[in-house]
């Protein structure tokens, strides 16, 4: 029997229509906008000024604290300005505009495709290099990777989990990466193991990607300590805590980090980025983005430079279909609708999804019928109907008692609700408020 997590979960239609599209390099855009806050933590501080010439891979914004990260130029050209522009939420954020001129890379970046299997660096040096390369979790949460690799005092990591689950419907960027760069991912995994000083690693892949499982299982024999685990197709299998539960059988305690059970989870995209940073000296400035949707002419997986406007990706995939109702950054379950197509691709953009109008809009919601479907699908064992009411009535102390902070915002409750109630909207609101209260209390 395939491994999976026990509590809750749903199975939305997979719709992986771009699964067979090979990763293509997207043509360079004319200008890029690189927000300085595209990761969790403090925004980076720009180190370039208007008029400066930059090369691909050059540091343009410096990490400003421990939980923060460097940002590198994804293109070569001239810095047009350091100014504000709207990000995916519509609020303006600071960032760097670069006018693209040519494609001149920094000399130290190795652009060949030759696989480099070994490194002379020790664990500490690897972590330092990961930090310098500006690597963040590419699964979508964009948490700086170097922070994860240093366990807090008194805790030791025992196992590294690489997340190749990609449980979000439609998205195929991780799937394609596993098919096209299996060795790189495995080397990256080994580098991460070395950095953390662990003996064991497991790559979790959902069973709807048999080709990737087969390919990686074959290759993993050459790499010591790496196991490939096929997992049952169930959303949100790719959630950090769900993956740990499925692979190791252990449960992360409420409010705790995965390290509390000796696990560290990284995405396959992150493992690949780590490989590139260590073996090829290449900082993180491009990533694989799926452009998909039922009406899209050419559903594709593109290798995109950070900062490329979303409109260029849509253009490259055959243009915006007439009947598009929503443009979503990310997958249909956890992604966010974009207010404008000028929004750039950031380190956390895993996909651009174009949803047709007839299913894009949310129907009017009705009263709760107490069917408790939300309770049975919640992968964290929460009571979403109750948390929603507490958010609606703004009873935040009770919401905290009901573990609102444990919510992983997977959206299974909203997805399954027969009354179309906006459960997650209110829970997220409650979570934000409770989070603010907790931070205030700690001060």
């Amino acid at each position, binding site marked *: 029997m395939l491994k999976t997590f026990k509590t809750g979960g749903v199975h939305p239609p997979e719709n992986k229509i771009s699964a067979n599209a090979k990763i293509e390099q997207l043509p360079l855009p004319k200008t890029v906008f690189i927000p300085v806050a595209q990761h969790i933590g403090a925004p980076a501080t720009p180190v370039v000024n208007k008029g400066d010439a930059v090369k691909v891979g050059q540091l343009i914004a410096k990490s400003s604290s421990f939980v923060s990260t460097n940002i590198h130029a994804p293109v070569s050209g001239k810095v047009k300005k350091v100014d504000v522009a*709207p990000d995916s*939420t519509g*609020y303006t954020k600071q960032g760097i505009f670069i006018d693209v001129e040519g494609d001149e890379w920094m000399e130290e970046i190795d652009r060949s495709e030759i696989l480099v299997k070994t490194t002379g660096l020790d664990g500490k040096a690897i972590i330092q290099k990961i930090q310098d390369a500006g690597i963040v979790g590419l699964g979508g949460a964009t948490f700086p990777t170097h922070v994860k690799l240093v366990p807090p005092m008194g805790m030791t990591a025992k196992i590294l989990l690489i997340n190749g689950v990609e449980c979000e419907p439609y998205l195929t960027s991780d799937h394609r990466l596993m098919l096209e760069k299996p060795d790189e991912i495995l080397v990256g995994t080994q580098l991460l193991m070395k950095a953390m000083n662990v003996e064991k690693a497991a790559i979790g892949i959902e069973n709807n990607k048999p080709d990737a499982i087969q390919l990686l299982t074959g290759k993993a024999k050459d790499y010591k300590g790496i196991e490939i685990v096929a997992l049952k197709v169930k959303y949100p299998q790719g959630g950090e805590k769900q993956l740990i539960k499925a692979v190791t059988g252990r449960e992360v305690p409420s409010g705790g980090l995965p390290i509390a059970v000796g696990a560290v989870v990284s995405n396959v995209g992150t493992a690949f980025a780590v490989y590139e940073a260590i073996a090829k000296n290449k900082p993180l400035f491009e990533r694989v983005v799926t452009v998909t949707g039922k009406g899209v002419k050419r559903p594709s997986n593109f290798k995109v430079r950070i900062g490329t406007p979303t409109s260029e990706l849509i253009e490259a995939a055959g243009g915006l279909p007439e009947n598009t109702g929503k443009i979503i950054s990310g997958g249909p379950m956890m992604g966010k609708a974009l207010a*404008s197509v000028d929004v750039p691709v950031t380190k956390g953009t895993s996909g651009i999804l174009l949803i047709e109008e007839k299913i894009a809009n949310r129907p009017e919601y009705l009263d709760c019928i107490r069917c408790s479907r939300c309770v049975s699908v919640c992968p964290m064992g929460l009571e979403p109907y109750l948390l929603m009411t507490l958010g609606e009535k703004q009873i935040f102390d009770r919401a905290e008692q009901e573990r609102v902070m444990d919510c992983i915002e997977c959206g299974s409750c909203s997805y399954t609700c027969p009354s179309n109630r906006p459960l997650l*909207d*209110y829970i*997220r609101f409650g979570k934000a408020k409770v989070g603010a209260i907790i931070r205030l209390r700690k001060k």
Partner: protein
Amino acid sequence: MTITIILTIAILSIIGTTSAVILFFVAKKFYVYEDPRIDSVEQALPGANCGGCGYAGCRAFADTCVKAADLSGLNCPVGGNETMGKVADILGLVAEKKEPRTAFIRCNGTCDHRPKTSNYDGVSTCAIAASVYSGETDCQWGCLGYGDCFDVCEFDAIDLRAGLGVPLIIDDKCVACGKCVDACPKNLIELRKRFPKDRKIVVACRNKDKGATARKACDVACIGCGKCEKECNYDAITIENNLAFIDSDKCKLCRKCVSVCPTNSIIELNFPPRKIVTEEKEVCNTEK
């Protein structure tokens, strides 16, 4: 039959009498002395329980007043000076004189001024909408129009003006309790001095973007040009972050700034009409 009725009455009477006796002694034993002035102060208060004074309802406020050594810092915004005078008389203290205030909404981005550029289809509350994105127009500062202020107002002092997208304060009902100020996630509502006849001159904009960006998003955005600042004879207007601000303590309601504002972002309310009457614009349709 008769016996049953008599028995029932007798038993119930006995239970009743015994309980009454017990309750009498319990009430005596556990009697809590409460200052009778709390009741009379509470009587003098408006009884709206709005929380505008900063305490949990009128009773809590009355309790605080009675216990306080002097009434400085204690003010019932709903009752105003008159009520506080009465409270002071009861307690034999002196009440501070407070200038009456009223709420101002610093946005005039109704849907004919501010074109819609995206469509929000989540929950219709400002708090949630503001936490996920900046709004349906290109102005990230302006009113969202879902009416969180309307929902919290207990005095019916906010008119949502369904269809216009920006609410209006009904001045004769507003008591400046400040609930709407806290409810607005964009911080558009402010409490300021109430002028005679509820006249208001206000920069109805909070857009801190550069002039060109602000103007593109909204017809009536403040572009921070500084004309009003130069025109004002009383130093009441200051410009900061591309945005003008009128200090209501210094403003003399001369209305000169209103006529020089190139984008009409300074609005006058409750003034007698000027000679040149502007044309009424058609009301456009958007739902709450």
